[in-house]
């Protein structure tokens, strides 16, 4: 952990409250995020137990499977979920703005601009915890290779019509969530942990209830006490007061409450099937009982997730978070296009080229994120200054100089007095950057003065004339902050060519050429 974050944790221990790790919000928050709280059945991969989903905290859609091992019930659940989630995802598909993208012309091999369209906004999905993000991926994988009755009339177990499509979108979201700084699929725990440091370890921060307890403890006590209650507090029946944020449930809940309720449901169904009559009241009563239990487990997580969103929303937005969201919009638009073009689902495993591209994208985006967060937030910049990757101070002297050419350009020498210790080596001629009207101005490191002051030579953004444009050169007494890192992620154009597009952004055309066999479905299948 960076020392500055460690310090914040230490302060949180002493204060009994979480301490800020950021002074602005570093993730885009949609006006209208879709919160998704899934629960799953222990021991079964991707056998959902229930879900709450919706954009209004007061009106969640609730889906519960009274017998998670029943395939028909599971299909019905996924069909409901697909209708609901896809309605949200599709709602952003048609509002577009014109945009430009550079491509390589196949005939001339030159880079050309092409007119295209970009969705003006994109859907955002928020789950309670990191495990929830993994679960979205898992559900995506489990659904995207299914075949519907229209696609494959001979399939003995056809999937409901929208289910494979939901699988593709969940896969896309899950994959996108691995790109640093992306906000299309977020978890409440990651959102909170990015902006606050608690007085516990980051392992314990994975518990949404405990994390919230540190940040906004209810009732007078300290964050530590509230967190302990959230983690371990149980009622007289041995049930957790704050159920886990899922998708896994608490074993005590499974064993004491859920298993008996499901057994009653099974018995009622068996009795109905054995008949004589067709009175299904018992079945419906038993189903309602399971539903009540499951809803009870989900609803505190539902509210906790919304509370997390509110807390983070209260922070002023970081300027450059919007620029990153534009990348998410591109990603959404690209996937929309692939789906519309009838391309096959994402392959089971990436080929080597795609895998390498994804990795490269993640690295570039990490560098971009680190730079942008620092530029947006003095607290993050403080960490970079501590690490010697930036320095701030006061301008003590400006000496005008010019290039030696027919049309001399300004190259002023600026001396900065700083207490920071930038990792600049004498004679290295390293470049440093500062933000000028939101754009990077570069300078060359000239030397350290004996008293530790830094002498720089400004290189650009001063206009075309002999005299620098007003405001482009700092003046004596100005406070300035220079970074040793570039402000724009290095490598690659702003938007990659479609044929080089990492698959997270829609992927190169034809990369799905590999055969897409549907998953074999057997009687043994549990999903």
């Amino acid at each position, binding site marked *: *952990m960076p020392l500055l974050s460690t310090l914040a944790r*230490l302060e949180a221990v002493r204060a009994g409250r979480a301490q*800020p790790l950021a002074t602005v919000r570093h993730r885009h928050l949609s006006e209208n995020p879709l919160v998704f709280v899934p629960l799953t059945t222990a021991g079964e991969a991707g056998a959902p137990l229930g879900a709450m989903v919706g954009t209004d905290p007061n009106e969640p859609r609730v889906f519960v499977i009274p017998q998670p091992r029943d395939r028909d019930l599971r299909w019905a659940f996924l069909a409901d979920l697909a209708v609901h989630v896809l309605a949200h995802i599709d709602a952003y598909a048609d509002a577009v703005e014109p945009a430009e993208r550079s491509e390589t012309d196949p005939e001339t091999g030159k880079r050309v601009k092409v007119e295209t369209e970009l969705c003006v906004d994109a859907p955002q999905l928020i789950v309670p915890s990191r495990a929830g993000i993994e679960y979205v991926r898992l559900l995506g994988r*489990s659904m995207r290779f299914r075949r519907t009755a229209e696609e494959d009339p001979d399939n003995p177990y056809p999937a409901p019509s929208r289910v494979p499509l939901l699988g593709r979108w969940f896969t896309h979201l899950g994959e996108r969530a691995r790109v640093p700084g992306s906000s299309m699929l977020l978890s409440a725990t990651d959102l909170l942990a990015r902006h606050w440091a608690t007085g516990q370890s980051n392992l314990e921060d994975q518990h949404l209830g405990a994390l919230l307890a540190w940040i906004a403890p209810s009732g007078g006590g300290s964050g530590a006490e509230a967190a302990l209650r959230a983690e371990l507090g149980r009622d007289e029946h041995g049930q957790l007061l704050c159920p886990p944020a899922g998708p896994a449930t608490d*074993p005590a809940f499974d064993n004491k409450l859920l298993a008996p309720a499901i057994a009653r449901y099974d018995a009622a169904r068996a009795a109905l099937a054995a008949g004589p009559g067709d009175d299904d009241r018992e079945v419906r009563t038993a189903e309602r009982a399971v539903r009540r239990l499951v809803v009870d487990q989900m609803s505190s997580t539902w509210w906790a997730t919304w509370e997390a969103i509110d807390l983070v929303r209260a922070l002023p937005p970081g300027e450059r978070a919007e620029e990153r969201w534009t990348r998410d919009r591109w990603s959404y638009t690209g996937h929309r296009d692939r789906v519309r073009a009838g391309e096959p689902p994402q392959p089971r495993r990436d080929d080597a080229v795609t895998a390498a591209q994804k990795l490269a994208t993640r690295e570039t985006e990490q560098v971009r994120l680190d730079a942008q967060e620092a530029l947006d937030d003095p*607290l993050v910049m*403080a*960490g970079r200054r501590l690490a010697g990757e930036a320095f701030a101070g006061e301008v003590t002297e400006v000496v005008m100089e010019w290039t030696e050419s027919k049309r001399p350009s300004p190259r002023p020498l600026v001396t900065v007095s700083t207490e920071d210790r930038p990792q600049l080596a004498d004679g290295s001629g390293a470049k440093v950057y500062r933000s000028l009207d939101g754009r990077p101005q570069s300078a060359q490191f000239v030397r350290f003065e004996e008293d530790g002051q830094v002498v720089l030579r400004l290189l650009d953004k001063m206009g075309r004339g002999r005299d620098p444009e007003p405001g482009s050169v700092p003046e004596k007494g100005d406070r300035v902050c220079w970074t040793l890192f570039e402000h724009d992620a290095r490598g690659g154009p702003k938007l990659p060519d479609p044929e080089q597009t990492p698959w997270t952004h829609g992927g190169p055309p034809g990369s799905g050429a590999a055969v897409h066999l549907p998953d074999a479905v057997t009687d043994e299948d*549990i999903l």
Partner: protein
Amino acid sequence: MQPRPLDARALAALAANPGCGRRALLDGAGVDKNALATALGSPAAFGQSQFAIVRGNSFEAKVKGDGGAELLRLVHGHLDPAAEPPGAGARVPDLTAAGPEGRAARTALALREATATRDWTLLDHPMLALEVAGSPAYLEPDAVVVHPDGRWTVVEIKSFPMIDAAADAAKVGAAARQAAVYVLALERTAEKLAGAEVGHTVLLVCPKDFSNLPTAAPVDVRRERAVTRRQLERLTRVEELAAALPEGLTFDPERTAEELAEAVSAVDAAYAPECLAACELAFHCRERARAADEVTALGRSVRGELGALTTVEAALAAASGAGCAEDPTAAALHRAARLRAEALELAAARPRRHVPESPECPC
């Protein structure tokens, strides 16, 4: 109190926190840590859902069904494809016997016979004995397969899925640590037997994708085996650990929580948040670590970073300037504190809403 025999899970968990003397002593002495934690007032939160248990059992039964044909096929295909494939006549010896000692003896006999017969043999739930800290621990792997060339392979059957041939790394790691314990136990038996050899690659069998069909992957457990062996050797020194303790120390769960807490604190612990997933005493040790203001409660990496500043108070004192001249870590913390305060002040003074094209440098 009846000593609680160690099982493979407990032995494997030793490898997860090798530095902890408390755990080594309690395990070596056969103390039931679960009961102890409850008596201390900080019960462990480990439980297993019956859904998971039912599912695990039914999957294992399926994998071993049909006289073990499928299981042997998987071992042959993944670990020994050059050998003669197992035929219909593969042997599955009966291992039932009275008591763990009887079953362990029966298993040893079956292993000897199978190795001599030079034919594929499946040992279903064999019982292995491993001497730990002077007393035998009995271990029951899911299966051991004897190859025609006399090699023995440990098979672990787990109910987490392998999706597109990849499984959850943390779960695979735990399975590997557990299998390593079985490998060690088998090696004790194999030592005495000419022609027998224990494979250091085990076979992990899991459900394939979202189905109930088995699939498998070989897992190399050499590293886990080495770590666990070192740990077990350490355990044999438990008597020395115990000798250093006050006379009459007892961990009887009938004692009061205070007495027990005192007894437990007589043995040094090495708490870290990772304990929460691995040790029954974690909540107790965490409470103690927090009460003692230890920075390790925030994570092992924090502890590493802060060096000689082992308490929160010492670290915060350094942050406000104490001892900066002598200790570079303290000096760094002090600088961090100044930068942090400056940044927070700056942010507080900033207008609430950022103008989009603010010329202001964020510092």
